Structures are given as C-alpha cells and as structure tokens.
C-alpha cells in the first residue's frame, strides 16, 4: 500500500465506518425518509461524487459494482469458476474412462505355496499345522507376498498326504480344528493376505462316506463313483494309473471294479453323475462362504473318462501289453481332458463369480494340468471369448529348464508359454512344487538366484514353492513316506517336501519335537535358514525380497512390456519397459558359463546401464551396453532411463497382457 494512494476517503476508512460522517448520513437518510430511497438519477449523481470505501452503503456499492471494471472481472471470475468445476469433472470422467483395468490381487503378488505338513509345527508333533502357518504370517509380510496357496488340509487318511479326502468339510486333526482354520483365515485377511485352498474334484479317499455308501449300493450314492463289472484278476481294460498299475480295483463288497486314476485308496468320482457335480459345487460354496479367496483345482484333466472303456493305444505298439504299467506307456486319449470337462469348470467359475462381486474379493481359480507338449490343452483353461474359466492354468514348462540348462533353453521355455497364451491373458511361472524336484537340486544351487530373479521379473504371476526363497534343496530322507515313492523309490516326492528351515535351532526351528520330524531336516539347515539369511543383505531371501518389493513398486515390472533382447548358450536377456515411463529394466541371466554380452546392436538401449541388483557381489555400478559381463549363475537387473521404446520396433519380440501407458504429470495409467 503506497502512501501516495491514501486519500481523504482512505483515511476515513482507517478510522472505521462508524465515525464516517458520509456513511452516517447515508445510513440515516433511509430511516428518516424511507420512501425516497430508490435508484433515482439524483441520488446517483450524489453518490458518484464519493469514491468507494470500506463501509460504504449499499447504494454506493451498487453504483460502483455496475461499472465495467468491477462487473467484467466479476462475471469472468464467476464463469471461470463454473468452467473450472466443469473441467475438473470432465478431467475426472476422462481419466476414469481411459483407465485400464487395475490388477487384481492374484496379479499383483506372487503366489506362495505352503505345504502344511512341512511349514511350521506349533504343537511339537513333528508335523506342520494350521496354527504354525498362522505363527509365520509375518514371513509373507517380509517377502511382500499376498497370495498364499495351502496344500490340502482336509480330513484325510493321508494315503496321499491330504490329496485323498475323507471329508471336504472338515480339517484333519493333524493340522488342527475348524476353529484354527477360521482363526488363520481371519488373521490372514487382517494382514491383507489371501488364502487359496486346494480343491480336489477328481477323487475322494476310499474312506469317504460317499464311497462307503456307494460300495454297498446305497442310493443315491450308488453311482457317485465309476463302477464296472469285472473279475478280480481281469480289469475291464488296459488303463493305468498315474502312480502305476491298473486303474481298476476289484471291490469285494460290491463285486465290481472301481476306477482310480491315482492310488487305489483314491477312487475317482463319477462326474457324469449330476448329483456328484452338485455335491462338489456345494463344497465350493461351503468354503467360499467361509471367505476363502480362491482354489487351486487339482488334477482336473483326470475328472472325466470315456464311457466306452476302450483300451488306450500304447506309445510303443510292440510292447507286451501285460508289461504296460506306467503312465507314460500309453496315450491317454480316453482318460485325460475329455469333452465336458470345461463345461464343469466354467460352471464352477460362474459359482465363484457370485462371490467375487465385492470389490477386491475376486475369487481366484488356478488349474493344475500337466499337458506336456499338448500345450493348447493347457491354454484352453484360460477360457474362451464366450466363457471365462480359470484365471490361469499353472505354467509348468519352466520345470524343464534344468534338463538342458542354457540361455537359449530358458528363452525357448518362456516363449512356449508366451506365444501360445491367448491374447490379453495373464502369464504365470512355476519352478517347483510338492510333486517336482526342487529347482535348486535339479538346476544346481549356483543358479537358484538367477532363477528367482527370472521368476520375479518375467511378466505375470510367479509361484514360489516354500523354501525356494532361501534356496532349499532336495533332501535324501532316511524313511520314505510318499506312497508314490514306495511304489518306485526314484519317484519319491519326499526330498522336496522336507520341513521349512526357519533357524539354526532344533529341527531348524520347524518343530519342538525332540524325537524328530515327519521327514528329515536338510543337513544344511544351520546355514540355509530364514533367520540367518535375513541377517545377510546378499542372501537369497534378501534378494528375493528386494525383487518382490521392486515388482510391486515398478509399473514396468508389474504390467509393462516384456521383450526378448538376447539369448545364447549362456545368457538369456530381456527387458521390461512401460510407455510413458523413462525408467526401464534390462534383465541379464546367466544360465551357462562366465561370459560377456555385447548389446551394442540394440539401439534402443542407452550406452550406460546402471546396476540395480546383481545376484553375485560386483564392484561395478554401471555397465556399458557393449560389455556386460556375467558369471555362471549370475542374474543382473540393470536399470536405465530413456525415451526410446524397444517394443515399438520389435513387435514380434514383445508381449504385454493389457496395453497401458503411464502419464507422469498426473501419475496415472491410461489405455493406449
């Protein structure tokens, strides 16, 4: 406020309107002669002589407010505010309309498989249980994992360790009670964790009440299983079970053969019987109502069999039919992936969708089906354009990586999935589970870190089998527990099922039982355990955690483009980038011997790449793109910043599930 501007009126204003003679006059006049007060010309003249001031009466104010220099800005400001409001609403609507679908919980987080027998024992009986899992939930927080798949814990006689279910609505006492389950589920949900249950539709235990009633011919259970007339020594056909020998078992009570694709204690349910489908659907409802977040559907390809019961063709036609007793000696044209299977699964999907309406409560469905070279059969579980099915079928192809470990092999196996997957679907990666040897053993310990890095930087959902985060290996157990292993010790699955190694205390911190655990603890537990590795910032678990956190934080890794850059006998290199984001990642994985990679020909890469994470300690902080050295089993996560996008020039080398671009100014994603 400059002094020169102060006029008489200004001075008056400073003294407050109360003592302002002019104001008083104006104020008094209408009271004494109210009838005169109006906007007459005479008055206007009177007022025009007064400059505006604080405390002026209404008439003066109105006079000035009509002037263009007040009116115009007023109008402009008013309409500006209106326009501003409309623009804000418009921007919001535009952003909402342009936003791509957001990732669901099963896409955001890796899936962690817990084998409940071996995860954590809370009651010192040598076998893991549900309370034990609850005790260790902080482990998932640490790893930034939100989706937990727990292998079966239904009431079971444990012939196949839970995959032979006696009662789908009860918890096996070995693992705890239904109360324990409810507590576990509640505390998981409290921590924002999702629980995926194993669901075993193909068969039940022979001790299941349905089978007991079916066996003695009680209606309506009579046809719950597949019964065929036969004699004790002559099965109806040449079909063999997954665990070896004939799929047919003669039953003394019913004087008929029942069908079993796995153990003879696991009779197959008859899914041609609508009552069976109804019963199994009710079980899905039972658990969904309890709040379970998803199902891993076990062995679905075995659910239906051809009704004609013809012999299956032999792989080797010249083989003596009487010696055919293993799965791989027959083509399973009549027992695997039969017509009608997808209708059943689609109907279950519909049932699960009923429970998925609440936002953030999508009920997840993942299919287990090993189809080997018939990958199109696996891909069919993604559903079709007219019917949704599973969210994804497990991708088991990386399990073959150790067969001929090399950079080329890795690329080839990754590409098997990427090129066969229907467009717009979500990939996933599995390198181990309770049925397959641990990757650390089959590929070699030195490659574990690189494999974990690959798992967590590939597009899609990684699945981690318990222990992979610390590099657990197969253990030669002293007593075989696995029934499959009892049939043939080479097939024993015990080595990959040994107890989780938590610390260097008794039983690796898994159990307080002094007489041992159900399977032997790995001898290396004093060094390979969660506690010791958490203390070491270069350990496998620390690197897993870093990558898992990065995967959650970086859009390029969670939903960006995936492009092959290079593969040779030693190295598999790919990049992850996002339109609109300068920051991108180059992953260089060494699945062979020490080597140096030259990526000079990749013009989209900047010359200098910064090391974000190296699985082996290195001193260099940056690399020139023409010389990227990697040692045997090393994984390198390189970060770079550029505006050039690789995918726009190499469409055939790149994949993305759903295109999205980043708009940095507003920190939003939009469809593009």
């Amino acid at each position: 406020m400059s002094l020169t501007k102060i006029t008489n009126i200004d001075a008056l204003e400073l003294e407050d309107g109360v003592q302002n003679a002019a104001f008083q006059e104006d104020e008094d006049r209408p009271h004494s002669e109210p009838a005169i007060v109006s906007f007459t010309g005479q008055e206007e003249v009177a007022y025009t002589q007064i400059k505006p001031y604080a405390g002026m009466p209404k008439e003066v104010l109105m006079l000035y407010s009509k002037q263009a220099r007040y009116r115009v800005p007023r109008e402009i400001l008013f309409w500006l505010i209106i326009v501003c409001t409309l623009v804000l609403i418009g921007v919001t609507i535009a952003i909402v309309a342009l936003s791509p679908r957001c990732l669901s919980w099963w896409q955001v987080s890796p899936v962690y498989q817990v084998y409940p027998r071996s995860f954590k024992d809370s009651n010192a009986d040598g076998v893991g249980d549900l309370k034990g899992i609850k005790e260790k939930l902080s482990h998932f927080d640490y790893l930034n994992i939100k989706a937990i798949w727990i292998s079966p814990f239904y009431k079971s006689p444990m012939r196949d360790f839970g995959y032979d279910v006696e009662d789908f609505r009860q918890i096996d006492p070995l693992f705890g009670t239904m109360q324990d389950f409810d507590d576990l589920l509640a505390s998981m949900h409290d921590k924002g964790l999702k629980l995926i249950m194993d669901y075993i539709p193909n068969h039940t235990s022979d001790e299941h009440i349905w089978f007991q009633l079916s066996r003695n011919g009680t209606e309506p259970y009579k046809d719950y299983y597949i019964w065929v007339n036969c004699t004790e020594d002559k099965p109806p056909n040449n079909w063999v079970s997954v665990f070896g020998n004939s799929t047919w078992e003669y039953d003394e009570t019913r004087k008929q053969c029942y069908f079993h694709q796995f153990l003879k204690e696991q009779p197959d349910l008859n899914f041609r019987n609508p009552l069976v489908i109804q019963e199994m659907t009710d079980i899905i409802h039972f658990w969904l109502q309890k709040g379970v977040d998803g199902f891993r559907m076990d062995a679905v390809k075995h659910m239906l069999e051809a009704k004609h019961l013809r012999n299956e063709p032999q792989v080797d036609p010249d083989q003596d039919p009487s010696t055919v007793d293993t799965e791989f000696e027959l083509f399973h044209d009549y027992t695997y992936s039969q017509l009608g299977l997808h209708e059943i699964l689609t109907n279950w999907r519909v049932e699960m969708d009923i429970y998925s309406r609440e936002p953030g409560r999508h009920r997840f469905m993942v299919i287990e089906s090993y189809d080997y070279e018939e990958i199109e059969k696996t891909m069919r579980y993604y559903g079709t354009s007219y019917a949704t099915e599973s969210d994804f079928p497990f991708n088991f192809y990386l399990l073959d990586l150790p067969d001929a470990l090399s950079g080329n092999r890795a690329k080839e196996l990754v590409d098997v999935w990427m090129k066969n997957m229907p467009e717009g679907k979500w990939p996933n990666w599995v390198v181990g589970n309770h049925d397959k040897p641990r990757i650390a053993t089959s590929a070699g310990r030195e490659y574990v870190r690189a494999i974990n890095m690959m798992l967590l930087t590939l597009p899609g959902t990684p699945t981690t089998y318990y222990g992979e985060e610390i590099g657990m290996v197969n253990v030669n157990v002293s007593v075989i527990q696995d029934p499959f292993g009892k049939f043939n010790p080479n097939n024993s699955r015990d080595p990959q099922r040994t107890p989780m190694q938590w610390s260097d205390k008794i039983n690796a911190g898994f159990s307080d039982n002094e007489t041992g655990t159900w399977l032997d603890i790995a001898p290396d537990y004093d060094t390979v355990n969660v506690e010791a590795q958490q203390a070491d910032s270069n350990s496998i678990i620390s690197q897993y955690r870093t990558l898992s956190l990065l995967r959650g934080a970086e859009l390029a890794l969670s939903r960006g483009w995936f492009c092959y850059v290079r593969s040779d006998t030693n190295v598999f290199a790919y990049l992850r980038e996002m339109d609109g984001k300068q920051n991108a990642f180059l992953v260089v994985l060494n699945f062979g011997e020490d080597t140096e990679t030259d990526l000079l020909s990749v013009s989209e890469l900047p010359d200098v790449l910064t090391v974000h994470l190296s699985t082996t300690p290195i001193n260099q902080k940056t690399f020139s793109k023409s010389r990227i050295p990697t040692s045997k089993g090393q994984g390198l996560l390189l970060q770079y910043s550029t505006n050039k996008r690789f995918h726009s020039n190499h469409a055939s080398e790149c994949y993305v599930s759903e295109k999205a671009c980043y708009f940095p100014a507003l920190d939003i994603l939009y469809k593009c």
Partner: protein
Amino acid sequence: MDGEKKKTATNNGSIKGVVEAKKQGQPKAAALQKNVGLLSSICLIVGTMIGSGIFISPKSVLEGTGAVGPSLCVWAACGVLATLGALCYAELGTMITKSGGEYPYLMEGFGPVLAYLYSWTTVIVLKPSSFAIIALSCAEYASTPFYPGCTPPQVITKCLAAACILIITVVNCLSVKLAYRVQNFFTAAKLLIIVIIVVSGIVLLAQGNTQNFKDSFTGASTSFGTIGLAFYNGLWAYDGWNQLNFITEELKNPYRNLPLAIIIGIPLVTVCYILVNIAYFTVMTPVELLQSPAVAVTFGDRVLYPLSWVVPLFVVFSTFGAANGSCFTAGRLTYVAGREGHMVRILSYISVKRYTPAPALMFNGILSIIYTIPADINTLINYFSFAQWVFYGLTCAALIVMRFTRKKLHRPVKIPIIIPVVVVIVSCYLVLAPIIDKPEIEYLYCTVFIVGGLLLYVPLIHFKFNWIRHITIMTEVPPLMNTPRCSPRGRLTRQGRLRQGHE
C-alpha cells in the same frame, strides 16, 4: 460513549431495516435472513450428522469394543452423549441467539481471547479441513466403483473433491434457499438409504439371521483405553450435533425450533445408527465386519445384489450432503468471526443481492481446496480433532460459568446443571485419552499452532487492507456496518435489544 450509542442505534435499526426493506421489496441493509424452519433445521442436523460415518465407523467401534453387544451399547451411548451435548447447546443457543456456534458462547463465558483462539483454529483449520475431508471421502466413494480391487489414482479423488467443494461453495454463495434445497434433497437421499439398509436388516432378522446376536457380549473388551477409542470413533459419526448453533440468527422462532430440532433430530439419528448396525450384523460376522473396507458397501454387495450399486451411490449423496452442511455452517462461523473483528473484516460481509456470507464461504472454500492437495493431510488433521473436543468441553464449561456470572440472562431453555458437567467430564476424557494412550509430538505441534494464533490476534484486528474494497464491490458484499462488534461493554445491551426486537 458517543460511538457506543451510535452503534447500538444502528444495530437496532438493522433488524428493523431488514424487516422494512423486505416489506418494501427493496432491501436496505444486508443481513442474513430468517428463513430456516423446523424441518430445515432437522434436516440440517440429520444431514450433517449422517455423513460417511455410519457407513464406515461401525468397524472401528467394533474393534474397540470387541463384541456385538457392547458395540451396540457404545452406539447408543454416543447418541445419548451427543444429545446431552446438544441440550447444553440448546440452552446456549436460546440464551445467546447469535450465529457462529461456540464462538459467541465462549465470548460471553470466557472473554475474547479464548473466543479468538476458537475462531482461529476453527476458521483456519477445523472447518475447512473437515469440509475437505468430507469432500475427499465423497470423491473416493464416487470413484472407487470404477476401480474394482484397487485404489483410484490420487488425481481423480483430488479433482472430484475440488469440484465438489467448488460446486457446494458456488451453490452456497448464490442462494441460501438453494443451499437448503440441496441440503434437504441429500438428507432425504441419505435417509432413504438408511431406510433401505434398516428394512433389509429387519427382513433378514425376520428370516432368522440372528446368529451374530447370540452371546453378543462374549469377547467384549474391558480395556479402558480401547473403549475410549470406540467412543471416539462412534462420536465421529455423530459429529455435527452442534451445527444448528452456527445459524441461530437465521432460524425462524429459534426459542421453539432450536431445542425442538435437537430433541427430534439427534434421537432420530441415534435410532437410525443402532438399526443400521443391527442390519450390518445380520449379514456379517464381527470378523467379516472388521475386515470390510467400507461396511455399507459390503452390506449392499451381499444383500442388495443386483442393486448393490445403490449403496455407494447413496453414500456419495450422503457425503455430498454432509459437505454441503459443513460448508454452510463454516461460512456462518467465519462470518461471525469476521463480524466480531477476529478475522479480516471482509469475511463478515454479506452479499447485497443474495444474502449469503459470500466472502466467508469463498475463504472457506479456497482453504478447503488447498487442504485437499497434500497427500497425507488426513493424518495431520486427525491430530487436530482433539482440539474439537477441547472446544466442546470449554463451551459446556462456559454454560456452567454463565450460570453464575450471568444469572440475569433470559434462558428460555434451562437444562439441569448436571448435563453440562457430564459433557465437560466426558470431553476431558476424550481429549486426554488418546494423548495419554499414544503421546505423539504432533499433538504438541497442534497446540503450538492453536496458541500461536495469538500472534496474529493484533494484526488481524487492527490491520486494514485497501484492496478489500475492490473485492467488496466485485462480489457485491457491503460490510455489515450496522451489526456492532461484540465488545465486552456492548454485548449485553445488544442482547437485550435483540430480544426486544423479537418480542
């Protein structure tokens, strides 16, 4: 003394002036008009109290109490407490018929400094920030349905919240009538959704969904601290019971309508809240309720499918209505603070044509928009909520004080002295409990900020701004010269005269 005389003279004239002006169809002095009836008063109370609280808070209350039974008891107790508080306010409101909520009562009871601190904290922080928060939660509810399973981008909620604030401010600036229509419409909307929830709850109860009410007291929490927290969260859903006192001057027949609106409005809300909670428990176990991010939406998803979208829609309506109510009263408070010279004078000016405290509303709106910008404003604002209870407590203490210092004041509603005593004790507890439970440095910052307002006391009152008159003309708001400042000497006379004017 000459000035004093003139002031009261003009004051007297002002009210007559308004009345005469109305008769002549030619308004003379700009003042807020008396056009808020009983229905609108109840709507304002119900409309502001039922914000988003009842759709979210049940979770925190259950968390604190641990079981269904005590949780329902806490809801009822919160209702009783709000009623008690409101009764104190009814006495104060009918005794001192001035707009501005606690402000005039603190002024009468404790003098200008405390009143100034109240207006400072409320005008600068509490009111605009609560407006901002309600607008943000409105925006959040409006945008989440479009982002199933994840949180909407920040920019969307911020844009929508800003738009919401702008719309409400413009509506309130344009017309008091329009603002009331908006308020009444959205109050009707929120009552409708409450009715929908309650009715479907009763239907479910009739169908036998009573398993969650068996043994409803087992597992109840006995810790003093957690129950206090439950009360805090419950009372948050009841916040707004003092709204009517902000607009006393605009009430038609305040002596009848103010207490009546309180006695009808708050128990109505209490009953609604309890019934809604019962409805929630018919479809959700306590565990499920605790894990639901927004209880009402989960209820809708489970019960009202395929019409479950109505719940988020009506919650948006409800929060929008609450935002409108908050803006409405905030404008009045700022206006009164300006009038009493505790804020820049321009804030007390009233639009000539529209009879709305436009500058105050704009000031509040601008501050609110600023408060929506920072990312974690919610957490900081939460620390200020203890200040809210300090002032509730002080106001009721003022009531007690005035029973002794201002015995002669006419009290059309006189409540038993025990009621304010209870409210004072409870508010002491509510202020101290969270601080003792979790002492944090932020509380100190808040206190420093509040007391720091004193530094501006002198400049705010004595400094004049030249540019103000240009704004005055542009927005067509002449100063309200004919309503005097509430100076310690003048106030009683003014009260007396005001009453004479009515009688």
